[in-house]
């Protein structure tokens, strides 16, 4: 007997009798004897006490550091309320809302989530979530190449290199050519976009803020793309959209990104949540689930998955995407985050990230070992040039419990002297001063 399996000896006997077989093994008699496996080399079962001890010993082999790095994973504050609510079994243990009459809870939060994503991005319609920001960007590429019946797409060199990689991996096996638009002083070069765009190119992928933390100016991009009917795809940090111009106002056709920045814990990189939002015009080309409003027989307002003729369970090989399970519970997570923070809170929290990042930026520039890498506006992440040995600096910071800045050489050997810092509302002045003191001690 095991605590997760309730059958008693008598239960099994009675059930086997109903089926008309002698013993449990008879239920497996058609499996060829040559396939039946001996014993598996996995551990014996643990009690809950032993399991806790095991995890406690593993926990000791982890040391969460205080991050001064972002690079796609940001240490924003998570209000306590969220964990308690998303772990309600009604949300946590439900399947995809295929029986809407008993899944109005899931469907309603998806609707609220879609509404909030549209409020932040300014777009017309959002889906119910994607896996992460990188795969959402790759899906946007598929969407654009599908709509434009093209096998080419542009991506800016200033997009986070991991996102670029995922896009290129997805493209490679579908024979899509991904052409890199070079950067100019830390920003996507508009001249290059103009030079590379033609009618055979599906569109352009950019990111804001970009891999250096720079908030790019996209003036002129929409026109350059429109000239060749190219689609504008922007990966944008949603937490900054109370401050920054929306993707919609830049003329974006598909907005994507990772909503991890809306309070989702770091968790070593996942689960996070990709978002995707688009225009009404492209709604039917969007991948993934969409929740809409309808009425029940009595005329009561209700929610339901809609426009499902885009999806794999109906359209099979002709579907817009193969996505089935997404990151639904994380959609609830960020919905509750946005509800708590509300109209003013998202702004205030990120104003703090912004101001604190600028404080650290200025403090570091007071040191002789740092100088500016770009003269461009940034938000909560910024890149400096340093004369310090970057690995040594980060080792020392680690000994003090800090995760130092991202060395850009992780992605490009030629950028050996560039480091990118990230600051959120969680980094206090005292922490930043202590951090700068350690860096000051290095030479």
């Amino acid at each position, binding site marked *: 007997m095991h605590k997760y399996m309730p059958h008693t000896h008598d*239960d099994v006997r009675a*059930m086997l009798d109903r089926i008309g*077989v002698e013993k449990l093994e008879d239920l497996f008699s*058609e499996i060829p004897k040559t396939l*039946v496996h001996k014993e598996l*080399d996995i551990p014996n*079962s643990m009690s809950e006490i032993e*399991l806790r001890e095991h*995890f406690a010993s593993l926990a000791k082999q*982890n040391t969460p550091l205080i991050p001064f790095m972002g690079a796609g994973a940001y240490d924003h504050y998570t209000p306590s*309320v969220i*964990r308690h*609510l998303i*772990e309600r079994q009604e949300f*946590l*243990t*439900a399947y*995809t809302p295929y*029986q809407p009459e008993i*899944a109005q809870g*899931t469907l309603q*939060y998806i609707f609220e989530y879609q*509404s909030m994503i549209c409020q932040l991005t300014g777009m*017309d319609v959002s889906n119910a979530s994607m*896996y*992460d*920001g990188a795969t959402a960007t790759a899906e946007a590429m598929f969407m654009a190449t599908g709509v434009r019946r093209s096998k080419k797409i542009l991506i800016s060199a200033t997009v986070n290199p*991991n996102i670029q990689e995922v896009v*290129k*991996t*997805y493209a490679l*096996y*579908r024979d899509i050519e991904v052409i890199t638009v070079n950067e100019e002083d830390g920003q996507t070069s508009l001249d290059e976009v103009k030079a590379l765009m033609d009618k055979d190119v599906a569109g352009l992928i950019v990111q804001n803020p970009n891999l250096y933390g720079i908030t790019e100016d996209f003036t002129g991009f929409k026109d350059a793309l429109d000239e060749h009917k190219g689609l504008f795809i922007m990966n944008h940090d949603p937490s900054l*959209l109370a*401050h920054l111009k929306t993707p919609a106002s830049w003329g974006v056709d598909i907005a994507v990104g990772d909503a991890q920045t809306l309070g989702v*814990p770091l*968790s070593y990189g*996942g689960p*996070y949540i990709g978002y995707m939002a688009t225009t009404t015009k492209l709604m039917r080309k969007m991948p993934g*689930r*969409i929740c*809409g*409003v*309808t009425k029940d*027989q009595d005329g009561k307002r209700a929610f339901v998955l*809609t426009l499902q*003729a885009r999806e794999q369970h*109906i*359209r*099979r090989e002709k579907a817009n995407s*193969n996505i089935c*399970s997404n*990151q639904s519970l994380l959609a609830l997570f960020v919905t509750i985050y946005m509800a*708590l923070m*509300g109209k003013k809170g998202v702004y205030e929290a990120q104003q703090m990230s*912004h101001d604190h990042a*600028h*404080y650290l930026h200025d403090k570091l520039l007071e040191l002789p070992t740092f100088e500016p890498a770009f003269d461009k506006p940034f938000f909560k992440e910024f890149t400096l040039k340093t004369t310090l040995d970057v690995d040594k600096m980060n080792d020392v910071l680690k000994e003090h419990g800090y*995760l130092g800045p991202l060395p850009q050489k*992780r992605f490009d050997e030629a950028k050996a002297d560039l480091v990118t810092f990230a600051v959120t509302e969680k980094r206090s002045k005292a922490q930043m001063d202590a951090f700068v003191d350690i860096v000051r001690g290095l030479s």
Partner: protein
Amino acid sequence: MYYDKLIFEISTEGRKGYSLPKTEIERREVPDHLRRPDCPGLPEVSELDVVRHYTNVSFKNFGIEKGFYPLGSCTMKYNPKINQDMANLPEFAGLHPYQPLDTVQGMLHVYYETQRMLSEISGLDTFTLNPYAGAHGEHIGLMIIKAYHRSRGDEKRTKIIVPDSAHGTNPASATVTGFESVEVKSNADGTVNLEDLKSVLDDTVAGIMLTNPNTVGIFEKDILEIAKLVHQAGGLLYYDGANLNPLLGFARPGDMGFDIMHINLHKTFSTPHGGGGPGSGPVGVTKALVPFLPKPVVKKTSDGYSLDGETDLTIGQVSHFVGNIGVAMKAYAYMLTIGKDNITDIARFSTLNANYIKESLKDDFLLPIEGICKHEFVFDGLKDKSTGVTTLDVAKRLLDFDMHPPTVYFPLVVKESIMVEPPETESKQTIDKFIEVMKAIAKEAKEDPDKVKGAPYNTVVKRLDEALAARKPIVKYKDLLSE
């Protein structure tokens, strides 16, 4: 009382649900030319407003802890609480993905050991936990198939064979990997038709996607023969292991001749579905295909665990970091709790439950495929077709009895499909109750068909007008306001 408010509809100007520390740091402004001129229309609510709202919203959902959830192809087993507690430990949840390796050894141990146990259970060499869900696993597995053929200069293999009974993600995954999918017909018992298979096998076939037991719950007895045929034709075998329950401890896809597979940790390995994710869809491969795995790969070395990316043949990166590792932690805790001493019982009891229900209900529901099934099976609607009561009606009527209906209208090869999967965590009492209710519905269908067709009656909303939603899409709060 039915709670029908949206969070936006309880918003009151000036309320707030957050607190932030005071700061003495000087405020700076975002440059004008980059600044958003207006304010996003998010709600203004207090913390208790939020807590009550989502608590009331949750009451409109049905979860596993409320009642029986025999949703076929979904393996809705109990989601243990201890797993959740372990995944929430701050020493894990607080790790940045780019932390130095010596500060994340415990996390990498979980990753490595999870993949190792999955390899052992499925008879493949190595797993990657980077895929986010089953469909993502399929996409990645098919990339590996393509990369493998390309690495041999074999560019003409453009087709993936998919049985007509396969899950919709299979053909869709073939498309997004740039393959053409070729459908093969099933035999009457849902197994692969060998003659049909032979007729499509040639040197343009890159591989085949199968699940065994197949989608109707029947074990593919000829699997070794199928594997031989496909391999002889130069193709690879992909195993859709979304639902692995009935094989655990009995038979291994690797031993059957499969080269690549994915497993849904959010099914067989008890991690919660979360209303549609996050899942986790680890992909396993034979030794020959290990170099193609997506990066990064977690390796065990004499200096501890490392993250490695640079093999020449890797298909590339498919996730920003290492996938839904927080989900894998729960599956790891589950595997340790089950252990080798109990794992086979999962197969035994889930199979016992399915056969018991099948035998108990086959006088009332049409059983298209006789014989022993594995962990799930399908009925083709009610046995008595004269009543006009459809599978949809039966499913809706079940809602009135506090049970989640089985999967309906999948697989597509069974017209009025009712796909029942009663996991091993369910007791005989629960299952007997389900049988009783199903029999009562069958009886009601004869005596008062309109009653069944009018169901549900006890749910927060009645049957929905799905066509209306698609005809006039209202997909955000703002659309409702302009109604």
